[in-house]
């Protein structure tokens, strides 16, 4: 009998539970589980590091450091608090932002343009990821509904780790204005995402 080969409905669905188990196995020193964690997540984490650092070479260094951290600290992962990919992304983002702060990069040169087309492309390309895509779409739709200044500020804070003072200086606005943009943006984002979820 010739085996049938079918597209998988959800890569995330197929991966999530395995990734969770693998992280627990890594905590017990399982090197093969570590290889699986790396294989299934390195592309995503590397893309994030390149986006934050704007330097593929430096991203490689940080990526290696991120996986060393995963190897050594996976016992601290709590499945009840976060999905495995959220935990991994949080580690990678924090490491990249630490690196940014260390090298005191000229932040004014960093782009914070929000490219809606990229979001839509990503959505279309990952059509298999049904549940994941709903959440991504909700976030994209809700981000689009924010004022441009709010959206840019949230993007810059997330991808570049800038603080209120730095964000305000870069945009040339008082810090109070920047705080208002972000706080209003966050609240509108949460309300919009909750409403979209309920629909």
């Amino acid at each position, binding site marked *: *009998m*010739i*085996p*049938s*080969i*079918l*597209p*998988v409905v959800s*890569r995330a669905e*197929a991966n999530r539970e*395995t990734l969770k*188990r*693998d992280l627990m196995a890594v905590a017990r020193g399982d*090197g*093969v589980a*570590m*290889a*699986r964690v*790396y*294989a*299934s997540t*390195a*592309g*995503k984490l*590397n*893309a*994030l590091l390149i*986006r934050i650092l704007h330097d593929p070479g430096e*991203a*490689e260094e940080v*990526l*290696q450091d991120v996986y*060393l951290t995963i*190897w050594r600290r996976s016992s601290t992962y709590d499945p009840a*608090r*976060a*999905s495995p*990919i*959220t935990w991994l*992304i*949080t580690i990678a983002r*924090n490491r990249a*932002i630490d690196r940014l702060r260390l090298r005191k990069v000229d932040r004014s040169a960093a782009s914070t343009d929000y490219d809606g087309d*990229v*979001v839509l492309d*990503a959505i279309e390309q*990952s059509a*298999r990821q049904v549940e*994941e895509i709903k959440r*991504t779409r909700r*976030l*994209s739709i809700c981000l689009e509904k924010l004022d441009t200044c709010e959206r840019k500020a*949230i993007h810059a*804070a*997330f*991808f570049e780790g800038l603080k209120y003072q730095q964000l305000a200086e870069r945009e040339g606005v008082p810090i109070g204005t920047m705080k208002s943009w972000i706080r209003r943006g*966050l*609240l509108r*984002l*949460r309300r919009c995402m909750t409403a979209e979820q309920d629909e």
Partner: protein
Amino acid sequence: MSDTGRTEAVHDDLVVLAGEIAMGLIRMSDLSPEFRDSRELSNEIDRWNDDLTKLVDELGLVEPPARVWIALEKSVGQRPSSFFRSEWFNSIVFWRWATAAVSILTVIILGLIAATHSQKARTAQETIVLVAAILPKEGPPLFTATYDSGPRIFVVIPAGFQPDPGKTAELWIVPKGSDDPTALGALDAEHPSKISLSLEQSNRIDDGAALVVTSEPVDSGTPDQPGPVIAHGRLTRP
């Protein structure tokens, strides 16, 4: 302001504060102990972390070069899968010889394996999940595989695999203690492949079985003999 309005305002403040913490705009250590210990705040931070990581989906995948994995192995001080690596595994000559040599014995072996596993199936209905990292001779894994014995399905996920022009990747299973590879199907280089196995094929899969990926001409159908070995791994319980 009514009690309801006040409650909503407090909740909104909590949502915003959690968002600011999740984005790193405010540090937890800057908060008063009553906030730091708040379960509600902690839950909201987790929710924001989960939502904001969706921003990363915009970026797609950028597979890192193999040197990152190699450096990682050196730092960790071990080669995670070295225990199943050996020279003969990478020998095309071996594979071709082995396939021909054992062809006569295949029917007998398959019969024995099928009989053994049918017995097992009757006596134990447990569903097992096996996983494998499929690695090349050097560098990071090219695929990860998960097998669920319940529906008899393999899910093989590519991780930076680039086939040569005109070539595709074929997955083979080699039972533990056997030299007899069985083709399971071609693998997609871009997307996860889901491979449904027949009962006979599933009986060949157990803890310790090897998965081998070979390079085969595109559109050649199910190969009789394995082509060059690209990567391999061993199925284990997670």
